């Protein structure tokens, strides 16, 4: 243990910030994830996480991630966790350089808790999203070396009473997404699947089913995304944020859901089919409502 950990140095009393990462930059900058940049491409050194999906529903938001991390053509880990609770009401999922991403999530979670303890009240959902953007921005030198981290942030907004999804780019730009979004190598396929599956009137379970279906489609077409591992019983992690806070779907519940998905695909390997024309036309709907 270094002597600096032994007591409360004057900096602990002097610093005037409620942000843990700013405090860290002041007293122990070497602990920040972004404080070690070189110049060459080092992306081959670290495993990469792949696909994260989130979708809002009536009364909350769900987020799911596959369990694979890859290093080039190798599967580095088959049961990695890529979706985490950020605090009591928000979730963060990570795609990109796994080591840095996990450390960034750890820092982000301390950042939110630190603010809440010092100020006696949690940050707003937008405030949390902006803090995460700042952490990603600090990582830009690493991103330029091939170690980009692209989180997906989602949470229950207590002020407006709705589930929200926020995506980022490597420079820390943040973008509000409506209804659903996906990041990572399989995201194109997952988003395509969700386009056909998503309905705004989903309940929590339907939203969870839709996101695991979309992860199946991502794994179907992207070699870096892991599908359901039926022999080892390794399935996506699915979390939910709603008015009661953050919760994780039981492993048993997800296992049952996955069996349902796989059984359906035994009949139709490409998954549920969407109608060729859109939802009932305005005339049909009017016909149902009006006598």
């Amino acid at each position, binding site marked *: 243990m270094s002597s600096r950990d032994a*007591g*409360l140095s004057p900096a602990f*009393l002097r610093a005037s910030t409620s942000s843990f990462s700013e*405090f*860290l930059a002041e007293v122990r900058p070497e602990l920040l994830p972004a404080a070690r940049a070189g110049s060459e491409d080092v992306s081959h050194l670290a495993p990469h996480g792949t696909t994260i999906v989130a979708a809002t529903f009536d009364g909350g938001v769900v987020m799911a991630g596959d369990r694979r991390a890859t290093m080039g053509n190798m599967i580095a880990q088959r049961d990695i966790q890529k979706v985490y609770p950020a605090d009591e009401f928000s979730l963060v999922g990570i795609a990109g350089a796994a080591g840095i991403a996990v450390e960034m999530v*750890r820092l982000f979670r*301390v950042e939110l808790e630190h603010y809440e303890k010092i100020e*006696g009240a949690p940050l707003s959902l937008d405030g949390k999203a902006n803090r995460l953007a700042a952490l990603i921005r600090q990582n830009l030198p690493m991103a330029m070396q091939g170690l980009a981290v692209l989180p997906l942030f989602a949470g229950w907004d207590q002020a407006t009473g709705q589930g929200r999804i926020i995506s980022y780019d490597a420079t820390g730009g943040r973008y509000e997404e409506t209804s659903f979004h996906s990041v990572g190598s399989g995201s194109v396929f997952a988003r395509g699947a969700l386009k056909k599956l998503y309905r705004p009137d989903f309940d929590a379970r339907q939203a969870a089913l839709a996101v695991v279906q979309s992860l199946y489609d991502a794994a179907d077409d992207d070699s870096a995304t892991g599908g359901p591992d039926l022999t080892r019983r390794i399935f996506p992690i699915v979390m939910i944020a709603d008015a009661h806070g953050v919760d994780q779907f039981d492993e048993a519940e997800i296992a049952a859901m996955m069996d349902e998905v796989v059984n359906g695909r035994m009949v139709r390997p490409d998954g549920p089919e969407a109608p060729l024309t859109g939802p009932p036309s305005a005339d049909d709907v009017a016909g149902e409502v009006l006598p």
Partner: protein
Amino acid sequence: MSMMYVAPEQQMKDRADFARKGIARGRSVVVLRYADGICFVAENRSQALHKVSEIYDRIGFAAVGRYNEFENLRIAGIRHADLRGYSYDRVDVTGRSLANSYAQLLGTIFSAGAEKPYEVEIAVAELGTQPSQDQIYRLTYDGSIGDEEQFAVMGGQAESISAAIAADYHDNLDLAGAVRLALRGLEAANRKDAAELDADSLEVAVLDRTRVQPRKFRRIPPGELADLLAAGE
């Protein structure tokens, strides 16, 4: 300006008297163990300026005295705990280490000639995994530190409150019993003309071993507190 020689003994005594007087003006705080954890009860009419606070997963903080000074200590403690937890691991954050750091800091401030001593008394409580591992550390303005077996009382009337609580304390108090015992203690010390204490004039929080979340600290909201106080009547 003429400098006058003051014997070190006299200097320390003056400083201690100064700090004690400041602390005696404030309202008291009780920290006591109950069946499922550790309970903090503070006489505090403010809803916004807290005397009791969360430091870490299993560590709570309570203070009496000058608000800006103990608020400074509270924030330094949160920084200390979060920094340790981030650079090592969450389980490596201990109440003992925090209490030691506070003792060092308060001792240095007390004996440094230039500054005035802090007019505060603080308690650091840590919830163990087993009740027998629970710890309550009490620290005074000069950096003295002691650990209390059952309960700690801070503030001006600490002695009379302690006497009132010790008379009825036992290890298996439930939460309602612990809160009411602390309240009786605080009332015993109050002047006769003081208003009676109720849910609006108390700040109560617990480190609750039965909580499933890793963060065991929980504030008791006024509604629940009123129910707890009514339970024994």
